């Protein structure tokens, strides 16, 4: 049974290899190969899951050792897998949602002549992501970690002919690299501290080392998590990542890859438990990002970017929860899973809307679409209710738990974090309602629409398939796209309830992450009530602003905050001024230095030699008598020197 684990990774990897090396002759069937292999790895996952359920909770962990990877004196890195409940959760999420999105993409990418390659990249991503969650040591995890980074780079930049896409891809990879520095330093620290970096021994002996070391490792891991999960201060890439095709945004930048950071933290629970400071920083990062993303989400008119902001903020919740320690780990993962469902659903819905709207992404040019694309409307709506935490739907449970846990942190911290979480919930409700209203309700602003507004470049290549400026004829998407949306919608409705009833999920994960029940200063019921009320407030506020009044097609100038939020709270501008410009100046000056100084010294020496030579050779003036003089002088010196030698 263990041997199936490798197949989980192998299947999509094989798909990637075949599709990318296969060449044009596979164009016809490429997408089917990809989808089948993705589904295959889901099947393997399911089989293993069934097997795992068969065992008793304490002994569910399986592992498979393939081969010794880097054997060097005192340094053992193996290619070995470990499948426990935590990994299993991810395996199912990744391969499941992954397969659905493969199916969806068949329809979505139908008109793209490079569809085969697209599926190749998707498979590559699945393989890397599964490797990430299945690795039994940090170095192998690092491979998956960078692997998903590569896949996301390739997919964000899939439409490479668009400079904006290429730039976004590069940005995403670079920001992630900054995070990777953190991960590699963390691994080095582990190596010097524990002499190994396999999960087992490291986490087991975490207690033996000083809190200082653990804090350092923890912070480095957090840095890595920030990079991958788009947490402040490394969040800037996620918004631009929406340049990629929508399925990519759904799979990588909503459901799976961006949550890898949460996985990393939860996986390293033992280390964080030993480093309260690191945990505190984690919660702070989570809280800040939570608000940051939410605020950005409120201001965006680009539907995908609005959703991206929301993703950021939701992951903020998870990180916050993970930072809370044993009381939060489980809920972090739980929210991660439910979020995986509804956010993927929302993105697919957005994709389907764009599909019907000539790839228009500006919500101000939507409106009243509910009667044109009912299925999309329903599924999107369910996802919407789920994310705002409408009682009974999955978002409600997971988010509520996190807020409780936040309060349960106790002390002022607890109050602050809880408050922030609540506020976040309110804003979430607001911006999601805004999206909902602007897209599916109100007048149909897309009729006789002006040309695409310049400040928001359309994410999809308008010229690619349909006529660019033809008036759109909104229509429902084909079955192959709607079915996955329906499935995800189902998940986002019942997932939460299914997990929380009888603390199923808690019991499932407890053996891995451990769990302690927090005791909020106020009763759980109060928290729930508060959550619901702020949610209702948010919805109401949004309704007043976007439901009652017509939405202007051209965005109003808006308040200072709005404008800042539209520009991702100026964080990009900051990067541009400080990092990009500064870096350019630095490199330019260094090039100059290299050319003039380092090279100059050498050339200077050569030149001075030449000058010296030129001066000396003037002595050779062609007059025999001056030669005689030099001889005479030489003789004199020679004699004098000889006598001198004797004298001294």
């Amino acid at each position, binding site marked *: 049974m263990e041997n199936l684990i490798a197949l989980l990774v192998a299947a999509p990897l094989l798909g990637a290899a075949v599709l990318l090396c296969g060449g044009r002759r596979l164009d016809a069937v490429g997408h089917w190969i990809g989808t089948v292999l993705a589904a295959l790895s889901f099947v393997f996952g399911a089989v293993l899951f069934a097997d795992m359920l068969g065992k008793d909770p304490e002994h569910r962990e399986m592992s498979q050792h393939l081969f010794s990877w880097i054997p060097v004196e005192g340094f053992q890195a193996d290619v070995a897998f470990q499948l426990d409940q935590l990994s299993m959760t991810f395996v199912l999420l990744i391969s499941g949602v992954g397969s659905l999105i493969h199916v969806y993409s068949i329809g979505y990418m139908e008109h793209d002549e490079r569809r085969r390659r697209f599926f190749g990249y998707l498979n590559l991503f699945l393989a890397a992501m599964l490797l990430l969650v299945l690795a039994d040591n940090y170095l192998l995890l690092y491979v998956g970690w960078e692997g998903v980074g590569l896949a996301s780079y390739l997919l964000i930049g899939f439409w490479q002919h668009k400079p904006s896409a290429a730039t976004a891809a590069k940005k995403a990879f670079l920001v992630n690299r900054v995070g990777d520095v953190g991960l590699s330093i963390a691994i080095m620290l582990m190596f010097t501290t524990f002499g190994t970096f396999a999960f087992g021994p490291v986490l087991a002996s975490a207690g033996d080392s000083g809190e200082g070391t653990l804090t350092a490792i923890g912070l480095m891991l957090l840095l890595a998590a920030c990079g991958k999960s788009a947490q402040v201060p490394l969040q800037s890439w996620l918004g631009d990542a929406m340049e990629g095709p929508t399925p990519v945004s759904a799979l990588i930048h909503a459901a799976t890859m961006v949550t890898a950071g949460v996985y990393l933290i939860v996986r390293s629970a033992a280390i964080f438990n030993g480093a309260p400071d690191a945990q505190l920083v984690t919660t702070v990062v989570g809280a800040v990002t939570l608000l940051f993303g939410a605020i950005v989400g409120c201001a965006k008119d680009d539907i995908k970017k609005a959703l991206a902001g929301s993703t950021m903020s939701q992951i903020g919740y998870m990180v916050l929860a993970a930072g809370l320690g044993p009381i939060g780990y489980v809920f972090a993962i739980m929210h991660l899973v439910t979020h995986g469902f509804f956010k993927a659903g929302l993105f697919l819905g957005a994709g389907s809307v764009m599909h019907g709207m000539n790839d228009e992404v500006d919500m101000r040019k939507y409106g009243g679409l509910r009667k044109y694309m009912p299925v999309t409307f329903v599924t999107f709506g369910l996802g919407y209710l789920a994310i705002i935490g409408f009682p009974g739907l999955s978002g409600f449970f997971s988010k509520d738990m996190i807020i409780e846990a936040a309060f349960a942190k106790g002390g002022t911290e607890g109050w602050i974090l809880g408050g922030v979480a609540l506020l976040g919930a309110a804003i979430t409700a607001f911006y999601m309602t805004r999206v909902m209203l602007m897209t599916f309700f109100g007048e149909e602003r897309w009729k006789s629409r002006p040309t695409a507004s310049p400040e928001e470049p359309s994410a999809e290549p308008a010229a690619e398939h349909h006529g660019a400026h033809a008036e759109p004829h909104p229509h429902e998407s084909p079955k192959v796209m709607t079915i996955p949306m329906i499935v995800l919608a189902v998940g986002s409705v019942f997932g939460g309830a299914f997990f929380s009833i009888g603390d199923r999920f808690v019991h499932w994960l407890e053996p891995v992450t451990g769990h302690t029940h927090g005791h909020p200063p106020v009763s759980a019921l109060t928290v729930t009530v508060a959550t619901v009320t702020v949610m209702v407030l948010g919805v109401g506020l949004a309704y007043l602003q976007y439901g009652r009044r017509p939405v202007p097609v051209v965005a109003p100038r808006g308040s200072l905050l709005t404008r800042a939020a539209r520009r991702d709270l100026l964080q990009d501008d900051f990067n541009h001024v400080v990092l990009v410009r500064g870096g350019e100046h630095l490199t330019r000056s260094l090039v100059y230095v290299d050319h003039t100084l380092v090279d100059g010294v050498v050339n200077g020496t050569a030149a001075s*030699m030449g000058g010296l030579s030129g001066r*000396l050779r003037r*002595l050779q003036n062609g007059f025999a008598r001056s*030669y005689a003089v030099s001889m005479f002088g*030489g003789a004199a010196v020679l004699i004098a020197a000889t006598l001198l030698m004797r004298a001294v």
Partner: protein
Amino acid sequence: MSASAVHSLWTTAAEPISKIDPPKIEYGQLSPTLIVIGAAIVGVLIEAFVPRKSRYYTQVFVSVVALVASFAAVIGLAAGGYGTTKAGIAAMGAIAVDGPSLFLQGTILLAGLLGVFTFAERRLDPAAHGNRVDSFAAQAASVPGSDSEKAAVKAGFTTTEVFPLLLFAIGGMLIFPSANDLLTLFIALEVFSLPLYLLCAVARRKRLMSQEAAVKYFLLGAFASAFTLFGIALLYGYAGSVSYATIAQVVDGTVPQITPALADTMGNDALLLVGAAMVVMGLLFKVGAVPFHMWTPDVYQGAPTPVTGFMAAATKVAAFGALLRLLYVVLPGLRWDWRPVMWAVAIVTMLGGAIVAITQTDIKRLLAYSSIAHAGFILAGVIATSPDGVSSVLFYLGAYSFVTIGAFAVVTLVRDAGGEATHLSKWAGLGRRSPLVAAVFAVFLLAFAGIPLTSGFAGKFAVFKAAAEAGAGAIVVVGVISSAIAAFFYIRVIVLMFFSEPRPEGPTVAVPSLLTMTAIGVGVAVTLVLGVAPQYFLDLAGQAGVFVR
């Protein structure tokens, strides 16, 4: 034959003479020299009696035979152990026949042989009025550009005297390093210098430069030899004798019987030091060490290239041989006085030669300066004052002379309307026109630069090793630096030959006869063999590294 010998001849004149016992001359051990000198005299007679047409062939024949025979004699002596076990003083103390002298004589003779080949080359210059001509003036006496010259050229005259002159020079050079008293030293110096002065003057093309070279060389040479002679006088005054052995004894204070006069002069070190300095200066002039080097570039440039090649190779060998013997046999007791001075000379020579060469534009002058730099390297070996020092210097001289002759022989090939095209700009793109010649020249340049797998590297390593072992680390470092500088201009020539576009009006490469080919071929062969497998020759030099006194 030595002065004391002559003296003993006369001082018996007072009493009635029963019999005059003749001076004892070891003809066998002197045979190399005697053969060459004899052949030179024959050459003079040939000039007098053999009809003009056949002179050239006769002269070449005689010279080659003489040199080969003489070389055979050297080999015979060496094989007979005269270099090692049977080494001794010949001709009543005038000549030392030992390892160094035999080794150097052999080298000089081979260089001379190749020299003869290049002298005899008649394919390079376009035939004048149907007569093949060599690189020497039709009639040296005739004024350049005058009618008489034209007439001489028309008549197809050639200066076949160069061959006897060459032989005389070689004869002198053979004696120079093996001279065992100061008088012989001086005579040998003059015997090989005077013919060289003349040889410099007899170029066929660019005669004014040739004559100028001769004048400069002559005046400065005479000036230098005057110094040498005065130095000899002072040394004689100090030691009361001119024989190396005696002087050495006096210097060490181990002289058997001390006359009052001797006791008087012995106390006066000034005589010794000044004398030694002046003699050494004369020799440094010949090897072209800074600051006595200034004749070198002009003379090398002006002289007919075959002469330059021969001179550059053989003169250095002979002069360094003499210098070695003087410093190692006569003045070892004075080591602590002359070593620092020689250090200084070696350093300025290495650096000076290398630095000034950087900006040269004429290939012959370039090689001249490089030869100065090499003189510096050899001096580094000389000051080691150890057997290793001697053998390394011997090896270096052997290696260097072949490279030099080969290089100058190549220079004779590259010609344009005005004769040899020696200006560097004309060498641009030679590698495209005739890769082979360029490649050969590149090999010589790399050898000069001391790149591994060439004889230059082995030699350089040998002398530096000797110097380092003698504790002259500073010399080694300076030597290394100046070789780096030197590398720069050797590389420049290679760049010019291979990487710059050929000029349309560029020179043509004349196809030489077998003679020059041999010279160049031998040069290349020796360069590579000594570079790859120097062991045998190092052994040779090692065995030859002991002076007799």
